[in-house]
């Protein structure tokens, strides 16, 4: 399941690629929307661990513009609902993710991101 939550935790790890290697950019994606159970505690717990700008930009790339550019101080219901949808209900089933720095492409197949590298690419 490549959801934006997982995507927010993945960085390029090609040998020597250590800056501007996050967030990976989606390419040629097939998206499915699937409902997930809403859990406000989970969202509040996880919020401090998110790279906010990366999340907002990646959501925009997938056609969702519901999140504010700055993380709000007041976590109202509407914000949490939007965050829930962006993090957990947008599933990228097929496609790839490209490193903004070295342009290495990581495939997504059957909803699972493949972060494996060939031996010569390993740092």
């Amino acid at each position, binding site marked *: 399941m490549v959801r934006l939550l997982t995507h927010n935790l993945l*960085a390029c790890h090609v040998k020597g690629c250590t800056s501007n290697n996050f967030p990976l950019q989606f390419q040629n994606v097939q998206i499915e929307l699937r409902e997930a159970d809403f859990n406000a505690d989970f969202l509040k717990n996880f919020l401090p661990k998110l790279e906010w700008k990366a999340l907002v930009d990646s959501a925009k790339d997938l056609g969702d513009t519901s999140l504010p550019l700055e993380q709000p101080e007041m976590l109202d219901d509407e914000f949490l609902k939007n965050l829930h949808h962006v993090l957990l209900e947008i599933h990228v089933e097929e496609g790839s993710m490209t490193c903004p720095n070295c342009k290495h492409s990581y495939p997504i197949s059957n909803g699972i991101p493949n*972060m494996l590298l060939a031996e010569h690419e390993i740092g």
Partner: protein
Amino acid sequence: MIPTPDLSHLSAQDYEHVYEPAEDTFLLLDALEADAEELRSLKAVVFLEVGSGSGCVSAFAGKILGPSALYLATDINHRACDCTRRTGSQNKVAVHTINTSLTTGLHQRLKNSVDVICFNPPYVPTMSTEASEAQDLRGIEGSWAGGSDGMQVTNTFLEVVHELMSPTGRFYLVAVKENNIPKIQSRMENLYQLRSKIILTRRAGREHLSIVRFEHTTAPTL
């Protein structure tokens, strides 16, 4: 008692390619269950299973830590990733699965963030080349072939695990006698300031299995 996860969706065909839960898996489940109350009191936000195979352990952790935690699972074998994902949904635990070696690709963003890490590594002593080839093949052999002292794959992870653990984070490792557990423990304490304890041992056939639990020396004792 926490029930063992439902694995009825996995078939003999899956187990041709993915490690079927066995005594080592169940020992890890028992260790987690024995620690359940402490784990809940840590209010874990991020759980990570390395080399998740069938996904049995991640699904079980979901029953302990509940729906307010994030469950991440990695495996080098893409079929194992698929099994883990299915086991998650079968047991109503949202397990986020990533096809990778150990935690590569996740390491940068997960530094000091993981509250509970589980690793049931390929611990069986084999020829060193056998272990490397098994990892390259990315199939079922990689779930057990451990190279010299059965530590080849484990050692790679032991060098980085301290960076992933949150200040109160815990790391559960499955090991066998041949892995030289006292040596692992002293090395982890000296090099990475991780104290550890053998919390459960069991003999299964020829294997003397143990679960070793690590935490930062600075973490409060519960």
